């Protein structure tokens, strides 16, 4: 039997554009008919495939525990969530933490602070700290992805909390991990970054604490967040790695660390979809494609 390059080309093409997408969508629809929903299968699905956009928010809500596995409880629980949201907004308005002109991201921050019992006293309104800025950044991105304000707040809150609980301990190790994979993929770029003193100054907070919020446009970002929400923080390393690889030529030409940082913090917004696709491929290559639990 001989290879048929034409056919390979075609199937590769369909894989990217449509056919595979249709199959994936069907299999997700089957998973979503389960009652109770199988969280493990849903996680595995979103680790392997991009979530179809029409189901993304629903799957995120289930994976983050905003909605319970039993579908027949969804209406009841959604009502509770909405009530909780409204109660908090109302109280913050009465206490004058927020008004009708407060930007929604700041409303979400105050709500989150109230629920975490760290709402600053009015007399001590200090400028937002690093954690607040991370929260605001994630909020701004989530707001672009999610239309409904109640869903948006719950997704931000649960995303941030789950990320902290699940991955808080792993975060300090991610820069080393990035260094390791960069040495495998492009040792020359690693030596260059080290030589100019840029390595310790890479925008790790933007990449690993904000999960690329404010770095990638939302259309690309949500595909990264699919992986984070379904249980991987390693994907963040590979997105960072793929950004470095994609702009290798530019970065090799910069000899000052602040130049490197400036470029990476304001990286071009074209080609980010391709960067994410390649990052996911690399991640599957090094960490394996999840078949069962992750």
């Amino acid at each position: 039997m001989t290879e048929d390059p034409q056919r390979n080309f075609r199937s590769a093409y369909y894989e990217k554009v449509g056919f595979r997408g249709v199959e994936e969508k069907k299999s997700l629809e089957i998973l979503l008919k389960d009652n109770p929903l199988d969280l493990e299968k849903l996680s595995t699905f979103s680790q392997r495939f991009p979530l179809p956009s029409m189901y993304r928010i629903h799957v995120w809500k289930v994976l983050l525990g905003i909605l319970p596995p039993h579908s027949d409880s969804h209406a009841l629980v959604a009502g509770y969530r909405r009530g909780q949201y409204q109660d908090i907004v109302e109280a913050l308005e009465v206490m004058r933490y927020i008004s009708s002109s407060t930007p929604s991201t700041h409303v979400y921050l105050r709500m989150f602070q109230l629920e975490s019992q760290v709402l600053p006293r009015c007399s001590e309104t200090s400028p937002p700290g690093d954690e607040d800025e991370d929260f605001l950044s994630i909020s701004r991105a989530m707001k672009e992805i999610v239309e409904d304000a109640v869903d948006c707040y719950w997704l931000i809150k649960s995303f941030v909390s789950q990320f902290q609980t699940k991955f808080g301990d792993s975060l300090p190790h991610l820069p080393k991990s990035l260094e390791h994979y960069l040495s495998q993929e492009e040792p020359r770029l690693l030596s260059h970054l080290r030589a100019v003193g840029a390595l310790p100054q890479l925008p790790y907070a933007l990449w690993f604490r904000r999960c690329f919020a404010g770095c990638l446009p939302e259309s690309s970002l949500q595909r990264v967040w699919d992986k984070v929400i379904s249980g991987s923080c390693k994907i963040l390393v590979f997105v960072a790695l793929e950004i470095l690889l994609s702009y290798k030529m530019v970065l090799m030409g910069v000899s000052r660390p602040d130049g490197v940082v400036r470029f990476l913090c304001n990286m071009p917004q074209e080609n980010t979809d391709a960067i994410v696709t390649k990052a996911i491929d690399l991640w599957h290559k090094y960490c394996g494609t999840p078949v069962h639990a992750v």
Partner: protein
Amino acid sequence: FLEDVKSQAKAELQASDSRYQAQRKITQLLQTELLQLYSRVEMEAPTSAASGSPAGGRADARI
């Protein structure tokens, strides 16, 4: 036996709900109280020139 478990669950949910409702009533009372106090403080503000500012200032500081 299953019915037993279900009715117990229902009772627990109802208990949680009434706890919530009770707490909500307290909140509403306190909110009304706070609103009244704010407007009182603000009404007094013009007469006591400088000392009136805190209340107004707080609202501003929060935005």
